[in-house]
């Protein structure tokens, strides 16, 4: 079983965390209590309501033993700051983050972070539709 931390439980985070929690060990973090509660009974993992821009919160969530960290807060800058620092401090195999701004995606991709952009992905899928 992989140890996975998901930060940001909006629509994307919720869907991902819930699906992964079927087979993996998942910790979901959000600072909004409503978002945490909204994960519901289908989510089979640990729920943490806290501000993730805090080393203690990350360590209590088990960042040291995490295989993958997903950063899906909807705030590009927050995702980037946490992602960069985690990559630097801890031995997390995959650090995957969502970034909307294409410029930032290009810039920060060089640093070993896996950056996913929703618009880019959708555009790629749509391009496939014409062939």
């Amino acid at each position, binding site marked *: 079983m992989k140890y996975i931390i998901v930060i940001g439980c909006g629509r994307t985070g919720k869907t991902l965390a819930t699906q992964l929690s079927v087979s993996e060990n998942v910790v979901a973090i959000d600072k909004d209590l409503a978002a945490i509660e909204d994960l519901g009974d289908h989510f089979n993992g640990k729920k943490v309501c806290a501000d993730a*821009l805090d080393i203690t919160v990350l360590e209590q969530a088990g960042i040291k033993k995490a295989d993958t960290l997903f950063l899906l807060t909807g705030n590009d*800058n927050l995702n*980037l700051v946490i992602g*960069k620092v985690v990559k630097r401090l801890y031995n997390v195999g995959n650090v995957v983050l969502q970034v909307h701004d294409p*410029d*930032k995606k290009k810039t920060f991709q060089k640093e070993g972070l896996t950056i996913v952009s929703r618009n880019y992905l959708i555009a790629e899928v749509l391009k496939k539709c014409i062939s």
Partner: protein
Amino acid sequence: MYIVIAGAGRLGVMLAKRLKQDDHQVCLIEKREDICRILARETNDYLIIHGDATYMHILEDAKIDRAQVCVSATSSDEDNIIICNIAKEMFGVKRTVARVNDPKHIDFYKYMDVDNPVDSTAIIAQVVEEEASFNDVMSLLSMKKGRLSVVRVDIPQDSPVVDKRVGQIQLPSNCVLISIIRGPEIIIPSGMTEIKSGDEVIAAALIDQEKDLVRALIGKL
């Protein structure tokens, strides 16, 4: 000097005014359009750019590559960190200074190499503590990432240095007495100056010697 400030809140605006008074060139970046309009109407002293400073093209508009210093004073810690990070890594700005809004976030400022994260909460707490407490020893200032420290020591009656001349006191190495405050009087001490009970002594020490310095001045810790 050319200085770019991100965030035109109370701090950003006051800083821009002060730097302008010291004849620096200032550019202020603010993402709220209404604030930009008001500022632009009020002043011609500095350049105002409307935009989100976490975007590279906005920093380019501000000519950040020519700035010696980038100050990030927005109310969002993640934005401040990213702005300083981009200024330094992409545009080669030598010195980055940022306002820390929530002290819990300060580790992230450090790990992201912000040169000077200014934690206003901690600074105010210290000033309030200084005003409220009756401690014999108070750390006034710490510089060079905490390696140099300036302390205030109240000399008690039973201190071993009472009625001694500064020249007679055995101070640890790497320490110096800066001034002696006696009632309304501020004395810059020489070797002949005598220390009296009730004096406030301001001294500078390297952090490793701070405890020894305090021990030498009040006899205990």
